[in-house]
């Protein structure tokens, strides 16, 4: 993630730094707003934040010996928990609306904590690549609890002043998810 260093490099003018800080603030607020929509269960409002060309991918992970870390995550096209385009996300949201979506009836209580937001690259004025960490807590029924942690490699694109998520690669910190299902989104 060498773009981060570039971002806060010495010798950059104060004006450029302020500009970068404003962009960072905007992106961070977007991610917080997105998280709030999920936690508030405003799923179709969240859907509107997804770019039409969405790539939403969460590869399977395995424990590897030191030196073999490059193989921890399955390659694209291999085992994954999510490998969605926008249409498949819509299918999941329709499922929630059917009135028979038992895994979310009663609905889960989630808390998406987004942190360590770092803009990695700004290929254009309207595209940013932003790394960010997450902890998602879920509580169901009386005592069922899940806690997931990981980081997300997001690409956001802006059109008409509105940011959308074009790409989200989710890198989870578990090799065996300690959860009865993933009926929520990261």
């Amino acid at each position, binding site marked *: 993630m060498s773009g981060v260093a570039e971002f806060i490099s010495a010798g950059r003018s104060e004006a450029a730094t302020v500009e970068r800080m404003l962009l960072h603030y905007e992106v961070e607020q977007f991610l917080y707003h997105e998280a709030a929509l999920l936690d508030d269960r405003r799923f179709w409002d969240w859907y509107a934040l997804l770019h039409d060309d969405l790539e939403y991918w969460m590869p399977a992970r395995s424990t590897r010996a030191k030196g073999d870390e490059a193989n921890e995550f399955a390659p694209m096209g291999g*085992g994954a928990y999510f490998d969605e385009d926008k249409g498949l996300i819509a299918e999941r949201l329709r499922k929630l609306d059917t009135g028979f979506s038992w895994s979310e009836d009663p609905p889960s209580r989630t808390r998406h904590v987004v942190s360590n937001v770092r803009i990695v690259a700004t290929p254009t004025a309207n595209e940013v690549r932003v790394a960010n960490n997450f902890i998602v807590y879920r509580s169901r029924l009386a005592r069922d609890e899940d806690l997931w942690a990981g980081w997300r490699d997001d690409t956001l694109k802006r059109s008409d002043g509105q940011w959308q998520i074009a790409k989200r690669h989710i890198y989870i910190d578990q090799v065996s998810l300690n959860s009865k299902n993933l009926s929520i989104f990261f």
Partner: protein
Amino acid sequence: MGAAKQAINLEKAAEIAAMVHLDTGLIDRRIFVDDDIYRLELEQIFARCWLYLCHESEIPNAGDYVTGHMGADPVIVTRARNGKINAFINSCRHRGNTLCRADRGNTKTFVCSYHGWAYDTDGKLVGVPGIKDYYHDELDRKEWGLPKVAQVASYRGLVFGTFDPDAPPLEEYLGDMRWGLDLVLNQGDLIAAPGIARWSMEGNWKFASDNAIGDMYHGPTSHRSGIMSGHKGGGGAMRETHGSDNLADTMTMFRNDRGFTVVTEYGHGLNANYVDPERFDTSSPLMQWRNDPAIMAKMGELGSKVARGNMLVFPNLFVNFGSRELMLRNPLGPTKIEILKTVLIDRNAAPDVQRMQVRASNRHFGPAGVFEQDDGENWDQSTVGCLTPVSQRYPLHYAMGKGHGQVEPSRNGEPTYVKSLMNEHAQLWMYRVWAEFIAAPNWPHLRANHSRPEGVL
């Protein structure tokens, strides 16, 4: 040095086996939660049956290994230098430390992190620090190799192992379920997609197994939302249809005249829907095998009509016909399960078609699958319902269709089956066989005395 098996109290085992009431189709709730029954299962079921280990394509080269479990026992599966597949207990003979902590990789030797004992890919103890100076050469390395899984064999790429040297050969154990596995394996030159999805949940492993072997009944309720949201069951094709039309159309699958139920020796089973072959949509790249006459000939008359199918290789491997997953459900105690999901892709297909196959599988199955999401809490909460003394007075009901299941004899290489889909024959059959394994003193007894599917279920 051979290890002594713990003696089984056969009288107690017989009492436990009798908790499955075959006359009424009712089952005592305690078998789903009791610690002693679970320990007995680990011996009488998981230490005896052939259990799925991995796909051959996961360990193609010498030194390749995967770690996993057979039941609850941890194992390492290796490809030895001579090309043979070995499996052993993943525990150092010295003090029991987990020998290999990685999920997969490649190595010449496994070295224990505690005192440095080293084993090769044949399980031989090849290195002991201080064997002369500290052990005075009194340790016979030949006696202290890794405990070997007694038999390891492959069926068309699927690697299985059994701890029991008296277990019949794999092909005999699989029996007519080879027909079911062939429905999947005939579709192409199949390999495991890299990367296994794993997740764990509260629940008893048997609820997951009986769901796979013959629970069509839960489809319209548990999976109603998955059906309505645009998923069209079976075939693996990524077709976009949704709304009430899809629901009405899919609901026609859940009729007795639209499918059949296979039960086989040693507790395997399969439930499948069939349609007239002309009705298949073969436009998807995932369906091109249906246009291959050689493949359709191998499927046979009955197989070529199968539109959707779930099968169980007893005790705990679920294989789905359409999306081609192997789903192993290992027990982590009497009330916890870990599921490992492997997707079979066509070695010769283009990468984007291989990815399409994995996506088709993830759409239905896996913890985020629009079908499988709704199974987890059912099994978890069903197990909760078995935990407590007053609830335990009320047996579970596995008697749907009991007395109506005429078993058709095997013909044309097809397995024995019942011409009905909406029933609980396969589930009760699974518990019948479960009881036989629980009570049997050994494999020779089982081979001579196990139930064969015949008559009326």
